[in-house]
């Protein structure tokens, strides 16, 4: 045995041994005693195999900008009031423009000064319009650099809030990440109730307390005669049969208190064992709540979540202590989920589901079963085919094939790659294509034998002459796999990964490892055995 051969045996055994050690944990239970000494890495199953949901959320940036503009409008109004100047109707009027009216045109300099001094980094004036020489209408927009910053801040905040909510909901190994174009990907493996999880993620959870304007009558609402500072919201009452009645309520547009001050929210039960949600405010929130309730005894206070009125109880007395509650005929799950979203905070802008795919656990199991069945059947067919065709050589091909699969699984497990259904398809395909490298070599050896070379020489020539072709031919597959990985989404990427790992593995086994088998075989040929390929 030459030194070269020994080295080859050592390297091959090392690689295959490592492959075996890394591949094994994926096949045995975590609790088996042997798992303790094996690496703690197994093939991760993709969402399509273990069940779960994959969401791509788009953040409504228009709404975020509009919210920011409304807030700036309110701030300018407040600032102006300090200086005795009156501004009315600060509103975002669409198209990401803020407008407001200055009642006394001659005070324009003060407003310009306020904008320049306090809001210079955020907004710029687009237009100032004279109305009858008395009023002025201002039109403002966000500065581009501030708009960009705002978007970044918004997406980060959304990400944080969603993470928070999912953590509290209790999902094992969620994957939440930012994508391009202000999108967020959420992957929740092994979720049973996809709908509930989606509801929790999607809820803006913008909580507001607004005073009810009971001076407005039903007729006023119907004829649209509503004071400028008021707005109509609706209270949804659940009927016993599950449908809802919509009841209009007129409230003051300006919120007296918002969810920003909430420190905690939890589920509690009333005397009828009906669940409701209790809220605790921080010190500042508690102070505001105490003042508002104290100033408005016997008036109604509407509790509004995402522009829906949940309840509008009458304030009986000043409430101190910073606690409030939301009632509304919740089921236990609804109350529990509402507490989660209130605790985790509101989304700074609404999110929209752009893409959803949810797979139930049973389909995952079914897919794995079908994948494995077709893999076994395919492998059996290939084994029979190659053994009929190459005899002992066929056994070599099949052994290499098994090595191949072990190596692919080991690499997948070792690098924490994810196996998806297309990934399994890649493995199945690999069983068919991995044979190719060996076939190229074998056919070449057969040819050399026919040309009259002895077994030793024929094997040498066969390997030498086919190696480059094998590398070349496989490179095209790897090229295709790289492109697939670059452009594919999750499951397809899994295919690209198994395909490329498998292609490398098949080159290694066919070119490097199989030489060992041939050397052993040739040794026996020297001792008189027949070389029959």
């Amino acid at each position, binding site marked *: 045995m030459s030194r070269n051969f020994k080295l080859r045996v050592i390297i091959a055994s090392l690689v295959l041994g490592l492959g075996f050690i890394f591949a094994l944990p994926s096949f045995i239970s975590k609790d088996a005693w042997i798992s303790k000494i094996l690496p703690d890495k197994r093939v991760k199953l993709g969402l399509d195999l273990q069940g779960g949901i994959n969401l791509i959320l788009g953040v409504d940036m228009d709404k975020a900008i509009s919210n920011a503009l409304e807030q700036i409008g309110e701030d300018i109004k407040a600032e102006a009031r300090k200086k005795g100047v009156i501004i009315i109707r600060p509103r975002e009027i669409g198209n990401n423009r803020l407008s407001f009216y200055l009642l006394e045109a001659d005070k324009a300099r003060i407003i310009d000064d306020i904008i320049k001094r306090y809001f210079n980094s955020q907004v710029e004036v687009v237009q100032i319009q004279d109305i009858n020489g008395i009023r002025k209408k201002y039109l403002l927009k966000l500065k581009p650099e501030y708009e960009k910053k705002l978007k970044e801040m918004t997406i980060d905040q959304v990400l944080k809030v969603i993470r928070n909510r999912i953590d509290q909901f209790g999902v094992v190994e969620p994957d939440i990440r930012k994508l391009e174009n202000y999108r967020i990907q959420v992957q929740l493996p092994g979720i049973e109730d996809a709908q509930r999880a989606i509801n929790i993620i*999607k809820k803006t959870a913008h909580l507001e307390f607004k005073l009810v304007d009971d001076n407005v009558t039903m007729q006023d609402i119907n004829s649209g005669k509503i004071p400028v500072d008021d707005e109509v919201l609706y209270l949804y009452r659940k009927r016993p049969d599950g449908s809802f009645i919509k009841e209009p309520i007129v409230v003051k547009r300006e919120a007296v208190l918002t969810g920003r001050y909430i420190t905690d929210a939890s589920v509690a039960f009333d005397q009828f064992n009906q669940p409701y949600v209790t809220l605790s405010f921080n010190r500042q929130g508690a102070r505001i709540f105490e003042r508002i309730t104290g100033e408005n005894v016997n008036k109604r206070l509407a509790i509004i979540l995402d522009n829906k009125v949940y309840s509008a109880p009458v304030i009986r007395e000043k409430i101190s202590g910073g606690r409030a509650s939301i009632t509304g005929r919740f089921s236990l799950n609804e109350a529990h989920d509402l507490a989660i979203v209130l605790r985790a905070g509101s989304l700074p802008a609404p999110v929209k589901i752009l893409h959803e795919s949810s797979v139930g656990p049973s389909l995952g199991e079914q897919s794995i079963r079908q994948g494995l069945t077709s893999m076994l059947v395919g492998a059996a067919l290939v084994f029979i085919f190659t053994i009929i065709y190459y005899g002992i050589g066929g056994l070599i091909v099949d052994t290499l094939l098994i090595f191949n699969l072990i190596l692919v699984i080991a690499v997948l497990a070792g690098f924490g790659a994810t196996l998806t259904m297309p990934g399994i398809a890649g493995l*199945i*395909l690999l069983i068919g294509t991995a044979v*190719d490298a060996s076939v190229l070599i074998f*056919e070449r050896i057969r040819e050399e034998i026919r040309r009259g070379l002895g077994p030793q020489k024929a094997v040498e020539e066969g390997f030498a002459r086919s190696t480059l072709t094998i590398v070349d*031919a496989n*490179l095209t*597959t790897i090229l295709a796999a790289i492109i697939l990985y670059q*452009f594919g989404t999750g499951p397809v990427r899994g295919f690209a990964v198994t395909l490329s790992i498998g292609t490398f593995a098949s080159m290694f086994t066919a070119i490097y490892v199989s030489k060992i088998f041939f050397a052993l075989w040739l040794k026996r040929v020297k001792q008189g055995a027949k070389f*029959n390929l």
Partner: protein
Amino acid sequence: MGIELIKPDTKIDFMGKRKIAASISISLILIGIVSIIVKGGVKYGIDFAGGINIQVKFKHDIKVAKIKNALKETGLKGLRIQRFGQSSLHQYLLRAPVLGEQPEILKSQVSDALKKLGVPFEIQRLEMVGPKVGSELKNKALEALFYAVLLISIYISGRFEQKWGTAAIMAIALSLGVYVLKLIHMPISILILAAILITLGLSWYLRLNYALGAVVALIHDVTITVGMFSLLNREFDLTVVAGLLTIIGYSLNDTIVIFDRIRENLRSPKKKMSFFEIINLSINQTLSRTLLTSGTTLLVVAAMLALGGGVIFNFALSLFIGIIVGTYSSIYIASSILLGIGPTPDKEPKPSAQHA
């Protein structure tokens, strides 16, 4: 004990039948194109077209019409229901092309409606793709095909001809052409077409004859597979694009093996043969390998097709068609083209470049 499927002295006259092969190919391509035109374009799956897919598994078999009836009240527009996967699993795929105002509540709506059928069921899978994401995915997939054409053209011209300098010229020309087209905001499908045409034109102009043969064979394979998909009324989704890219790699692989052999035989001083004979000889010499590899690959793909379930059916089907067409095209199409235009003129045969 090994057997030989192809006897060593096999001398099938492949090139003699190239006209028959050409007419078969042209008819297949035409049939596919006509089918696509008649059906008003390629039928896109939900990934590309947008919409909603709900896969439901019932306890026992149920008539499609019954399900349809039960779902009438959901008001889903354009709802289509079909059986899905192995029939023993009683799976159905409900598809709607457009999303309503609130896709989130759709699932519970569908679920409520199905409950009325009185057959135990389970919603196994739900996929919702918004129209924007759909068109983005479509663009991405086309882009992938585009880069595949680009990279492979460059690779082939370098690899087949051992002229990496020429390949570099090709790469620069391609990038320039595409850059200009991108400047004037051409849709990506035009870019793909342009890249293919530029590649063909350059291969012709630079006398990269092997590359030309290989690229024509690739176009042939992809066109026929897409056409067959249209003919079989199958949908075109992301996994099918993955299948197409795999086919491109696979078919190229076959072509490389045959072309390598042709070049090797051309260099061999012993053989005084015409180019026609050399091509025939080379195909025959590699035939055993070609059939064997395609055979094992087809075996596993057939297993996948029959047993792999609905999720990867389209993928397996694209591979199945593509492998058959790809094997045939590397024997007949790529070589016929090469025969038609002759081998790339070899200025200095390097002995080092001699391999299988």
